[in-house]
């Protein structure tokens, strides 16, 4: 197990180097003079020349790359061209916002998806099974930006049940510590704010969670079906144990590995997919951070945003792999 962990960590090194190379190259591959872009149409040529000088984009690429990696190793992500702020501190609230949204979406996807999958498998070919699987099939085919727009329209704009944008009530700002609002509101002892933040999470969370939910439901169902058909379950069943508990206790235990894989995978995917949801629901997360940075040609911010997301993704995958081998040591590597 330890050897495997070490081996997996070592395998990360080339991946991380490759990632830093790709993100670094983005600066040099994107067309357009950053100074001109930043200053816009009302800038004077002198101002542009001055800013170009200050940005120091004239050094050789190799020097810039090593500077960049050197900075990364010290946790320095550089400075945003647009805001002049340190990206490593600037990016944290955005990251927290995305993490909160992602976890919420994932919890929703797992709870609904796993249960729907188990019941579908248990009641195979029932009306419930057909309906659930049809919904799941539609769910995986759904453009999440469209789903989000429709939800926003119906539940926020027409019915007014839930807030349409943001993370909290602007009139009553949350006192931030961790930037995870559900935690912060509890820390400051404000259950009303907690409830409010929760309400803000619902629509974007459901939109983001729908696809993983559908995938998890389908995956759970198919692995449960295999398990349910196995002799083991048949034996247990013949002993007269109540069926529901059989399904949940024994069946799910064996179906957990493929499901775990999907869960891990989809959490990583959500990080990237969040960009669309965040755009629609004005969620100040890292997806929007990167997207805005692209619009503003804020190269260091683009670089760092992408790198941060990709790094998280890689590490989530690593953790899932390790969990995987921990839960089922029979799997050989």
């Amino acid at each position: 197990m330890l050897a495997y962990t070490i081996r997996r960590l070592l395998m990360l090194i080339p991946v991380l180097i490759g990632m830093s190379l790709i993100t670094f190259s983005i600066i040099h591959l994107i067309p357009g003079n950053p100074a001109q872009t930043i200053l816009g149409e009302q800038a004077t040529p002198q101002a542009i020349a001055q800013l170009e000088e200050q940005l120091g984009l004239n050094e050789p690429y190799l020097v810039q790359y090593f500077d960049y990696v050197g900075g990364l190793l010290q946790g320095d992500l550089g400075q945003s061209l647009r805001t002049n702020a340190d990206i490593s501190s600037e990016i944290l609230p955005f990251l927290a916002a995305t993490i909160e949204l992602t976890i919420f979406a994932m919890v929703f996807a797992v709870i609904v998806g796993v249960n729907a999958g188990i019941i579908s498998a248990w009641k195979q070919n029932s009306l419930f099974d057909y309906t659930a699987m049809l919904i799941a099939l539609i769910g995986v085919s759904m453009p999440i930006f469209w789903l989000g727009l429709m939800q926003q329209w119906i539940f926020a704009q027409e019915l007014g049940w839930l807030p349409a944008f943001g993370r909290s009530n602007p009139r009553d700002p949350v006192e931030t510590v961790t930037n995870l609002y559900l935690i912060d509101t509890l820390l400051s002892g404000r259950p009303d704010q907690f409830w409010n933040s929760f309400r803000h999470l619902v629509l974007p969370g459901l939109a983001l969670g729908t696809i993983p939910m559908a995938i998890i439901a389908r995956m759970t169902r198919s692995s449960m079906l295999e398990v349910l058909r196995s002799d083991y379950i048949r034996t247990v069943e013949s002993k007269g144990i109540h069926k529901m508990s059989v399904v949940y206790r024994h069946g799910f235990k064996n179906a957990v590995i493929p499901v775990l894989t999907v869960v891990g995978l989809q959490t990583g995917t959500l990080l990237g997919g969040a960009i669309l949801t965040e755009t629609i629901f004005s969620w100040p997360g890292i997806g929007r951070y990167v997207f805005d940075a692209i619009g503003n040609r804020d190269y260091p911010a683009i670089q760092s945003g992408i790198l941060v997301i990709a790094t998280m993704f890689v590490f989530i995958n690593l953790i899932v792999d390790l969990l995987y081998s921990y839960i089922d040591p029979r799997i050989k590597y």
Partner: protein
Amino acid sequence: MEPTSPSKNSPFPGPEHQEPQTSVPAAASPWKEAFRQLIKNKLAIVGMIIIGFFIFIAIFAPLLTTYTYQAMSAADRLQPPSSTHWFGTDDLGRDIFTRIVYGARISLMVGFFAVIGALFFGSLLGIIAGYFGRWIDMIISRIFDIMLAFPSILLAIAIVAILGPSLQNALIAIAIINIPIFGRLVRSKVISIREEEYILAAKAQGMKSGRILFHHVLPNSTAPIIVQATLGFGTAILEAAALGFLGLGAQPPTPEWGRMLSDSRQYIQSAPWTVLFPGLSIMLVVLGFNMIGDGLRDALDPKMKS
């Protein structure tokens, strides 16, 4: 063996994306048998009808409507669906039905070429990596790992940011992000076939690598590739729509569905039809491909036969 490390990472995945566990078909006419299975699958039939329908309207677009997709009319802005404008009009007074119909051409085309592109380069790299092994495999596999380390829509956005926003560049970006998915699939197939007896026999007879690859290895990997490609159509169409939605895909006046959605989103309250129909179209096409893909997998995967 490496762990079945999580590989597929599209934010808009089709179904599970397990590599279909298709073994080399042993029966005399496996394809016929598969086809028989497929047409027995009701969902797959529905999927084929949906896709057939969209192919039909894409081909015969000009015959289905009396409007052009770019004709503007200030007097007809934001009209609700009616007998003259079946799906209503958008904020420039253009007929939405017409734009949807022409948009089918765009989406199907993007799906097709992106998958073909990804399939071609992915298979090529996968075959090279799997067949030659060693350091070649090492390098190619690492490149795949790195590409898969980025959530795919993000990678696509970065590629489009570099190339500039256009339909063509969106297509290229989608093809690129899908390369490692096909690449890994083909590679693992090639590795498993490489040591089969008939390949070893061919080698012993002095057959050239290229001939072996194309005459034996490739044909024996087709089943999973076909399944993945069918599902890939749906994914590619979704990704193209997402890029269009973010303004990074097709540029106006091209009637691309994702772009239509984002152009109209501010009218969602006053003119919901402008948002409803493009979204439904995307969903239906993707659903169609997913249904066919599922059916194909069941038909080609002997394990699932009961």
